[in-house]
C-alpha cells in the first residue's frame, strides 16, 4: 500500500450553468478498496466519467498514475491503456450471448475481421473465471443468469481486458445478503491481487465493511477522504448530507382493530402457510432475504397473482381478488419495489403519473378528463408529501429518487387506500430523503392507515415497524416486536 494507482487534482466540470464538480481531488492507491460516497447529484458519476475519459474536465486538472506522467485529461483510450474500467450498474452485458462471448466481447470489437473459434473464446473465459475463483458455466447465456452471476461475468470481462482499476457503480443494489457477501469477498481477493477498486454504494454498512478509505463528495465539492476504521454509519451519513440526522425509533401506538387477515395463505413454489393480522394504524414490517417470498406475498394481497391455498379476510369478510383492480376497489394499494420500471411512467409528466390510478374517478361526472382537476390533485399531493417539484408538467424522470418515490406514494394514496403495501420504498433513495419518506409513512399510520413495509434493511424495519414478520424460504419464521430486540439481533435473524 501507499503506491498511487490514480491521482486527480483540481478536477472541475461545468454543465451549462451548473458547476457539477468544483476543484475535487481524488487519490486511489494500488490494491486499495476505496469508496466514493455522496448523495445523488453530488458529482460522483461525473467524476467517474472524467476518470474514464467519457467527459473531459475543465482546464487545470492534473492526472497522474504513480509514475512520472501528468496529463490534463484522460481520453477513453488512455483509460483503457491504464487498465481503468467501470462496471456500470446496468452491467452492459449482452443477454443473448453466452458467458464466454460476453467475456471476450472486447476482442470482437478490437479485431472484427479475425476468424475466430468459439472453443478459443470458451477457453479464455475459463481462465479468467478460474482466476476469479467462482463457478460459472461459460456456455450459459447471460439472460439465464441471476443478477449476481451477471455481475461476476461483468467483472470477469474487465479482468480479461486487463483491468487494474475497477469502478463499481452500485454493485450491490439488487443483490441478496449472501450475494453481497460473496461480492465483497471477491472484492477483497481482487485487491489482494493488486487491483484497485472504487466502490460506489448507498449502503453504508457495506461501504464500511469492505473499504479501507472513503472519499465523500457533497454538492460537487470534496468533503474529504477518511479511513473507514473508526468511522460510524451515522458519521458517514452526516458527512454525505451535511446535516445531523436524528433518527429515532418509532413510538409504537396502541393499534386499532384488525383490517386485513391472512389465514394459511399459500402460493405453490413461492410461499406457504402465511398467517398474519394487520391492524389499523399499524406499520407491519415484512422482511427476509430476497427470494424469501416477500414480494410474492405482496403480489397475492394486491391481487396480481392468485393464492393456491388459504384465505384473506378484510374487516372480517372473506376477500377474493381476481385482479389488482379488485384490490384497488377494496382499498389495497401496492408501491412496487421497481420504481424505475413498474412504479412510474418515466417519460410522462408528474401530473399524469399522480393521476393515473384515479383517472376513472377524475372523469366523473362529466365523462372527460379535465386537466385542471389533474393539476389540482397533483398540487394537493405535492403539498401534503412535501415533494420538491418545479413544474408538475415536467417528465417524472426529471426528479430525484426520493421525490420520484413521493410521486409513487402519492399516486397510490390518491386511491384512498386502507391498506398500503410498500415494497422496498427506499431503494436508490438518498439517506437524507429516506428519513423524509419514513416520516410520511409514519404519519400515514398515525392517521389510521394499515401499512405493510417490506424491506431487507434490518435498520429500516427496526426503526419504523410496530411489529415484524420474518419470512424464510416462503414461511413465517418469526414474529417479533422491535422494542423487544436490537437492530443487530434483527439483522442476524434475517440472515440466519
Amino acid at each position, binding site marked *: 500500500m501507499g503506491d498511487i494507482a490514480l491521482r486527480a487534482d483540481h478536477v472541475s466540470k461545468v454543465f451549462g450553468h451548473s458547476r457539477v464538480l468544483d476543484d475535487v481531488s481524488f487519490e486511489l492507491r494500488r490494491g486499495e478498496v476505496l469508496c466514493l460516497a455522496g448523495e445523488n447529484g453530488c458529482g460522483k458519476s461525473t467524476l467517474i466519467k472524467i476518470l474514464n475519459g467519457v467527459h473531459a474536465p475543465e482546464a487545470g486538472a492534473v492526472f497522474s498514475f504513480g509514475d512520472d506522467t501528468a496529463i490534463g485529461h484522460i481520453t477513453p483510450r488512455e483509460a483503457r491503456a491504464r487498465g481503468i474500467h467501470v462496471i456500470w450498474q446496468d452491467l452492459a452485458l449482452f443477454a*443473448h*450471448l453466452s458467458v464466454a462471448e460476453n467475456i471476450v*466481447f472486447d476482442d470482437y*470489437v478490437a479485431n472484427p475481421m*479475425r476468424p475466430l*473459434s468459439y472453443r478459443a473464446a470458451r477457453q479464455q473465459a475459463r481462465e479468467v473465471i478460474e482466476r476469479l475463483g467462482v463457478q460459472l458455466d461459460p456456455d450459459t447465456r447471460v439472460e439465464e443468469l441471476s443478477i449476481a452471476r451477471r455481475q461476476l461475468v461483468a467483472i470477469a470481462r474487465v479482468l480479461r481486458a486487463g483491468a487494474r482499476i475497477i469502478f463499481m457503480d452500485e454493485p450491490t443494489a439488487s443483490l441478496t445478503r449472501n450475494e453481497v457477501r460473496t461480492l465483497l469477498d471477491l472484492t477483497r481477493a481482487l485487491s489482494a491481487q493488486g487491483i484497485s477498486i472504487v466502490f460506489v454504494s448507498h449502503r453504508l454498512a457495506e461501504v464500511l465493511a469492505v473499504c479501507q478509505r472513503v472519499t465523500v463528495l457533497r454538492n460537487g465539492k470534496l468533503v474529504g477522504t477518511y479511513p473507514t476504521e473508526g468511522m460510524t454509519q451515522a458519521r458517514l451519513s452526516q458527512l454525505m448530507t451535511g446535516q445531523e440526522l436524528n433518527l429515532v425509533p418509532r413510538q409504537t401506538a396502541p393499534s386499532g382493530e384488525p383490517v386485513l387477515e391472512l389465514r394459511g395463505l399459500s402460493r405453490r413454489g413461492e410461499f406457504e402457510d402465511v398467517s398474519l393480522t394487520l391492524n389499523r394504524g399499524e406499520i407491519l414490517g415484512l422482511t427476509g432475504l430476497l427470494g424469501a417470498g416477500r414480494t410474492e406475498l405482496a403480489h397475492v394481497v394486491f391481487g396480481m397473482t392468485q393464492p393456491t391455498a388459504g384465505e384473506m379476510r378484510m374487516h372480517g369478510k372473506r376477500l377474493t381478488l381476481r385482479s389488482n383492480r379488485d384490490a384497488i376497489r377494496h382499498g389495497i394499494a401496492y408501491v412496487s419495489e421497481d420504481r424505475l420500471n413498474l412504479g412510474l411512467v418515466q417519460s410522462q409528466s408528474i401530473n399524469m403519473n399522480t393521476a393515473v390510478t384515479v383517472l376513472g374517478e377524475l372523469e366523473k361526472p362529466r365523462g372527460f378528463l379535465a386537466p385542471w382537476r389533474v393539476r389540482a390533485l397533483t398540487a394537493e399531493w405535492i403539498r401534503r408529501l412535501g415533494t420538491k417539484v418545479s413544474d408538475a408538467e415536467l417528465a417524472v424522470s426529471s426528479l430525484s429518487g426520493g421525490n420520484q418515490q413521493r410521486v409513487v406514494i402519492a399516486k397510490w394514496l390518491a386511491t384512498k387506500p386502507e391498506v398500503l403495501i410498500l415494497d422496498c420504498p427506499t431503494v436508490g433513495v438518498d439517506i437524507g430523503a429516506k428519513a423524509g419518506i419514513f416520516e410520511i409513512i409514519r404519519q400515514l399510520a398515525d392517521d389510521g392507515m394499515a401499512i405493510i413495509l417490506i424491506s431487507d434493511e434490518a435498520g429500516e424495519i427496526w426503526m419504523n415497524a410496530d411489529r415484524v414478520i420474518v419470512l424464510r424460504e416462503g414461511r413465517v419464521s418469526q414474529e417479533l416486536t422491535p422494542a423487544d430486540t436490537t437492530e443487530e439481533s434483527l439483522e442476524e435473524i434475517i440472515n440466519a
Partner: protein
Amino acid sequence: MRRLHLGTEGVLALIILGLGVVLSLTTENFLTVQNLFDLLNNQSVNMIFAAGLVVVLIAGGIDISFAVAASVVQYVVMTLLISIGGGNWLFGIALSMAIGTLLGLFNALLIYRFRIVSIIVTIATFNLYFGLLMVFTGGVSIYDVPDWLYYAVPLIDLPATRGSATLYLPVAVMAVISLATGFILTRTGFGRAIYGFGSSPEAARRSGVRVGLIHAFAYGWLGMCAGVAGLMQAHIVQEVVPNALIGQELPILAAVVLGGATLGGGRGSVTGALLGVLLLAVVQNGLNLLGVTPYAFRMIVGFIILAAITCSNLDKLLPQRAMAREARS
C-alpha cells in the same frame, strides 16, 4: 440438470423431417429426387432473401423494403444490360449486388443518421422504391432478357422416374450466399458484434462497437442479397415484371422469425432462417400434393407461426423461477 437442447434449428429440422416422413408415406411424389430438387430450385430466391434478412433481424432491426428493392434492381440491371448489349453472368451479378447494396445503404443511412425506427424507414422506402418503379416503368414488363440470363444453367442432372431431375444455378448462388453470411455471423468478431449490438445496443456502443458500421453492413448486406435474389428470380421466370416480388416480404419475414430470429434482435441464425423457409415450402408442397386448396396455405402458415411463437414464449416463462431458485441456493 442440462436437458436435451436442440435449439430452434434442431426443432425445425425435426419437424421438417417428420413432415417429410408423413408426406412420403401419404403421397407418391414427395420423396422423389425431382420433387426435392424442385423444392430447392423454387425456394432458392426466398432463401437468399432470408439469409440477408436474418442479419438485419439479428442487429435488432427490420426491413420490409427488400422485396421491392429486388424488383428495382431487376429493372435497373436489365435496362442497363440491354443498353450495353447484353453483358454476362459475372457483370450481371456484380451490378445487381452493387445496386442492391446501395438501396440497402440508403435505409441504413436514414436509420442511423436521422435516428428513425427501422420499420418506419423501410415502410417509407418500400413505398418510395415501388412508387418510383411503377412510375418509371409504367407497369410495363421486360420480356427480351439477355440470352445468358434466359437459358437455365443446370448444375446437377440426375436420371429420374420421369425424364431427369435437375438442380439449377440459383441453388448454388443461394448456397454461396448462405455460407458467406453464416461465416461472417459466427466466425468473425464483427459478426458476433452484430449479435451483441442486437442484444443490447447501449452495451455495444459502450464497448466501442461502431454502430453506423453495423447498420450499414446489416442493411447493405440484405440489399446485396436482395439484388442477387432479384436477378435469380428474373433468371428463373425469364422476364422482369415490376410487381412480381411485392408481397413476398411478409412470408419471408415470417419464415425467418420461425427460424428463431426475433424482432427484438440478438437472436437468429442463417441455418434457422433457411429451415424456416424450407418448412413453409414443405408445408405448401405437401398441401399441393395432397390436393388441398391453395387458399388454405396462408391460413395454415398463420397457424404455424402463432403456434411456434407461443411455444417459444412458453419456454420464456420458466427462467424467472429458475432464477429465483438460483438466488436462493
